[in-house]
């Protein structure tokens, strides 16, 4: 049920000020066009990695779209996030082919290594773990995608190694 996507308001420990003026060209581009709500939300998420609360208000003021409609759409589609995400989003494919080729092993190994659950972000803000329905690389099952980088035919330890290497590169 899609209502499960509505997240409880999380306590934000560190409030980073958001530069809302970044959204001006976006609002200019789509203002007044019919069917603009999804592209506006997609564009906003592209800018910030998620849709901040302030951004909804700015969109409402700038385009006249209703807050309730936008919230309804943002919580309906899997793509939209209402909370900040890590620098790297680890997508573990749980399509049919990956499932029968034991994608659960990848998720379990990464959950253990990163000490987070599906949908959560590591404390250092580096990684967010996400299960996705299908990445369309079924012949390489099981598949993991980090950024634009897709790796296939993985085992749990191999997946953990890839993530650890990114962490080492980030810390240097």
């Amino acid at each position, binding site marked *: *049920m*899609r*209502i*499960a996507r509505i997240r409880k308001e999380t306590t934000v420990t560190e409030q980073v000020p958001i530069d809302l003026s970044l959204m001006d060209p976006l609002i200019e581009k789509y203002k007044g066009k*019919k*069917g*603009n*709500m*999804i*592209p506006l*939300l*997609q564009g906003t998420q592209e800018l910030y990695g998620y849709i901040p609360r302030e951004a909804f208000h700015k969109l409402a003021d700038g385009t006249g779209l209703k807050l309730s*409609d936008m919230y*309804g*759409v943002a919580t*309906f*589609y*899997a*793509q*939209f996030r209402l909370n900040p995400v890590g620098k790297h989003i680890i997508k573990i494919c*749980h*399509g*049919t*082919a990956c*499932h*029968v*080729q034991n994608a659960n092993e990848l998720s379990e190994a990464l959950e253990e290594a990163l000490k987070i659950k599906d949908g959560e972000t590591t404390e250092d803000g580096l990684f967010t773990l996400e299960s*996705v*329905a*299908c*990445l*369309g*690389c*079924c*012949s*390489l*099952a099981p*598949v993991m995608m980090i950024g*634009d980088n*897709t*790796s*296939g035919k993985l085992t749990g330890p191999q997946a953990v190694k890839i993530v650890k290497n990114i962490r080492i590169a980030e810390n240097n």
Partner: protein
Amino acid sequence: MTQAKVIVGLGSCGVAAGAKKVYDKIAALQVAEKLDFELKKTSCIGMCYREPLVEIIDESGSYLYGDIDENKAVELINQHISQHNPIKDYVVHTDLFETVDNSYTDDQVKIALRNCGYIDPESIDEYEERNGYRAIKKIAGSAMSRLDVIQSMLESGLRGRGGGGFPTGLKWKFANNNKADEKYIICNADEGDPGAFMDRSVLEGDPHSVVEGMIIGAYAIEATGGVIYCRAEYPLAIKRLEIAIKQARERGYLGKNILGIQGFNFDMYIKEGAGAFVCGEETALIASVEGQRGMPRKRPPFPAASGLWKKPTNINNVETYANIPWIIINGAKEYAKYGTEKSKGTKVFALAGKIKRSGLVEVPMGMSIRDVIFKLGGGIQNDKRFKAVQMGGPSGGCIPEHLADIPIDYDSVNSTGAIMGSGGMVVMDETTCMIDVAKFFLDFTQKESCGKCTFCRVGTKRMLEILTRITEGEGQEGDIEMLEDLSYQIKESSLCGLGQTAPNPVLTTLKYFRDEYEAHIIDKKCPAKVCKPLLTYTVDPEKCTGCTVCAKNCPSNCIDGARKEVHFINQEACIQCGACYSKCKFDAILVN
């Protein structure tokens, strides 16, 4: 002497397997050693199991090399290009001699995939060289009327390749009959079915064929605007479609009075989907294009009467559009030569799962499932026993081994309780638990249900709870009957295809694998050894060397034993996590 061509397959799976590195390596080598050959890119060649693929065409013919890494690429260029000495061991397909993989391509008929793997998808010239945009030129040149085009779709017998199987010609006829100042044509490229990647391959490999198919459809129904609704998860497909639309516009295939047909004004744009499986349903897709929550509505009115912005709208799937230019050029009769009486033409399948050769195949309708899996797919991985094949994704079902000889056509597949679907074929062997598979799909539909209809929203959740209970060893008497009852009620009382078909994975596994359900519920055993809570782990005293690895890795400290002595698992404390089984190097952990 003609210049040799080196073509690297850069589809999504190719890139994931390392094809980009291979391409860059060859490009660097070409510059460094000033070698004379033409380096080109193409998209998915279909032999995903051999990625990365490199094709070399010289004066003697074409050689397709598989499993090429950077080192092998250097070897290839040195041997084949510099010394004209093909490396036979790496060849996976050629017409010049027999290879083990020739049987993968022998029985295929490529219509929708006619250009995939042959052209650079970002080049309109290469598409035009292979009869591209000739279909729309033929229509413009021969004054084929709108009704002629529709008639030819009807005669071809083409049915919706997205899974519905509704005759395309009929759909166009309805849209044509509804007169309005504005009409829309939509391409459904929201391939949400987990385990299917046909549409992605067509969009990445031959985007112009979809664009041309839509232009022909727009002509037939008098559409004024077109939308390609594509998954945001397919960035490469979106990029290539954007290039294709721009190129088509530059050549005058999109725009005003297209190819001199007075009054034929048509253009299109791409709409990125935001991730909702239910948007594969026509009315939900339209709501999503309009920027709303993608929830289906009651029909009638059908989109052909009132669709996008309340205007007549025609929606077809990617593969359907890709077939259309071919049918116009070669004629409806030529297309109808392939297939069975009620299912004409060819169908693209994505082979995946426990199969030796996974990839993309296009076969004439009527071929048996067994032939696709064994002749083309090469059989089951590690020669295990073939148990079932899942067709149709979350809306489909599992077809058991004993029915594998049925021909692939819409009606025969439907008669098993599965559906043709969009073309995903996920092969399962004896190590796949059917209850686990049913649970997997229910988990998917339960999450994707939009929540509008109570039976779909709540019913799928209850079914998932029962299935979860069964796989955890808490199955009760009456669970099977309860599942059946819920299934029929959900099917009856849901508005759209998602709910009406959501119970299919459960119903088909209940029909063909009831004994497995009973083993879980009554005997508390999982015959496929997948459901961990139902397994017991013991140590084989013959094989145990006392290396202590299992004991060290046991999270509940339930394995006892001194070094170099046989270990023992305390069953009462065992949490069935399987850590000992996966860590043991001597196969000394037995699972029952």
